């Protein structure tokens, strides 16, 4: 059992190293046209950048409470187990890089897409009475008595029932 565990750990480390090497090479190739970095003669800075990206991605995923990779089933043959562990190591490296990339792209989308739209929306709605977002409304306590500015009911008309057949085939 111990030997199996050691072999599995080595395979996983090998998979991780393979992912690291592939990503380092990808960084090298991708940055050449831009003239970034020292080039093929000194791959170490690229390797450092690759591992920083992957580890940062893991830290981001931890911050986002994202789950770990699912555990590999225990009841499988030795060679299959080692192969699975190698793939697991590979996935571990690229999970980090994917997390990092997602974070960068989604941050851009959030601050430019959501942020600018939100600012425009607030600017447009400022000055219009009753146009504050519902999430920021403060509701007076029931215990404080009747507030004449509050509606008498919070029910809204809906009338959703049988629709045209086409409406059911639309995801919106």
């Amino acid at each position, binding site marked *: 059992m111990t030997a199996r565990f050691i072999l599995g750990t080595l395979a996983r480390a090998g998979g991780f190293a393979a992912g690291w090497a592939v990503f380092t090479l990808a960084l090298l190739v991708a940055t050449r046209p831009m003239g970034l970095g020292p080039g093929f003669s000194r791959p170490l800075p690229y390797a450092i950048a690759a591992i920083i990206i992957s580890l940062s991605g893991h830290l*981001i995923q931890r911050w986002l409470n994202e789950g770990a990779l699912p555990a590999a089933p225990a009841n499988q043959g030795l060679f299959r187990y080692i192969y699975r562990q190698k793939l697991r190591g590979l996935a571990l490296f690229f999970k980090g890089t994917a997390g990092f990339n997602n974070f960068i792209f989604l941050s851009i989308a959030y601050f430019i897409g959501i942020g600018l739209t939100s600012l425009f929306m607030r600017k447009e709605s400022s000055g219009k009475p009753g146009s504050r977002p519902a999430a*920021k*409304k403060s509701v007076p306590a*029931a215990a404080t008595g009747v507030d004449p500015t509050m509606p008498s*009911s919070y029910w809204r008309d809906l009338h959703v*029932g049988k629709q045209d057949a086409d409406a*059911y085939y639309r*995801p*919106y």
Partner: protein
Amino acid sequence: MPITAPTNPSIYILGLSCHYHDAAATLLKDGVVVAAADEERFSRLKHDPGFPIHAITWCLQSQGITVADLSLVAWYEKPFVKFERILRSHLENFPRGFKTFQMAMPSWLSEKIRVRSVIRKRLGYRGDVAYIDHHLSHAAGAFLPSPYREAAIVTVDGVGEWTTTAYGIGRDSAVELLKDIRFPHSLGLLYSSITAYLGFTVNNSEYKVMGLSPYGRMDRSAEGGSPQAGAANPYYAKLRQVIDLKPDGSYCLDMGYFAYQRSDRMPSEKLCRLLEGDIRKPEAELLPRHHDIAAAVQRITEDVVLGMLRHARKETGCENVVLSGGVALNSVCNGRILRQTGFKSVWIQPNAGDGGSSMGAALQAHCSVLAQPRAWRLDHAYLGPAYTPGQVGAFLATRNIKHTRFPSREALLAEAARLLQAGRVVGWFQGHMEWGPRALGARSILANPCLPNMQAILNDKVKHREAFRPFAPAVCADDAETYFECDLPLPTPADFMLMVYPIRKEWRERLPAVTHVDGSGRLQTVRRETNPLYYDLIKDFGRLSGIPVLVNTSFNIRGEPIVCSPEDAYRCMMGTGIDCLFLEDALIVREDNPADKWDADAVAGD
């Protein structure tokens, strides 16, 4: 799955719900539900939100069909509308929603918004997909399987697309929702926020808050919202500040007390200040103030639900009501409906949460998209997989498990009743698995409720759960009135363990294992026409003990879903303190198979 030309002239509709919690699949054949199951039972992940591939595979295999035989797939919500709500929330809460945006978007962009391509990729299905609004799926799942031709419909859950609460009316094959309340104002999310505040897990442990509530101080006879109601419990008045409740049952939350619309936590700092303390850590002791908070939120939930039911009664003029959504699983509240709302009859489907929406979506697609009449009513919850004695025999032989097989049904019942009377904890695996979160006598752990130490035995040896949580009693429908102060005629939801009633005072001391601190019990009524073996077992036990009532609790290891297969059941028994297992017609005794024992405590979750 292989794609072949359709070979079956019947109309098959597959209803699906997934991606958030409690993924499930339902298969309709010519309008009749022929198979329905939650994904968690197969994947063994509690509340599994993933695409229900195992449940779908079983549904199709149970009917001997392939994906190519499906006429339609019905999805339980409109994904683009939900996505719009999420983007809108982020717009309104910018920049505070940065983290939740980062958390939500990868899964949204990769699969949640691309339902059609996910179905195509995972199933190989090339036909039409119908998208049914989330609360319409809930409403259809409540009304279309019900016994009524006309009924008011009330749906209350966390949130669907925008709607969190709605009411409407169902007539024959038509379901219409008339009014709604929208996100972020949500009774379900209020309850979940307090669940989180009390240190329990959201979308999993709301029932623990319900179980904790009777320990809190509350004048339960006082009218909701009255000063008397909160006189004994200061948290009731405090929590009433959080919600503005109108006489028509509509409500609005003060969102300053909540953070769920902008972050990954539910209660805000303001709510913590209001409740005079931080969020309880899961391992921390439950204090009397936690009991009071649970009692207060439970009482407010009842105020709101009963208020909106009274309003729905007045607006629709219906005498019958059906409920759906996660809040409809609040059995304490359900037990008050017929006494306090004016409705004469109530029906709730056994899987009232999101899992049941797969059934609602499929039935709505049948009635509205394909314009077919209603063809089915749900009389029992046994819609999941079953295993023949042959399959069980093969399993026992393969694993070389020592067992005894009974030549007759009577012999099996006699032995089961004898073991229960002797104080043994019995695993009961019989017939088709239940649909929904409750074990209803197909995948149950049974015990003698008359023994004073049975609750402790079950908690110590088997369930390892919080001491404040009571066990449920199972009683034959014709005996229910003897032991419970229940509504008459007995509402069908009691068959699905969805009603809590007071146990009659004279029986409380004689049924210590199932009597909660306030004298109530979440009973399951059993009818011979729907589960004759279970019914006869309770009767046989009654002949030995003098009281035909059993403890019925779910057959699972803590933190795992209820067992599905013989393998799951055997593993559960050998890892816990269950003494013996009736696996169809075979009896397995734990002590006879010592080599297979293991300690389930090591893997027990929440």
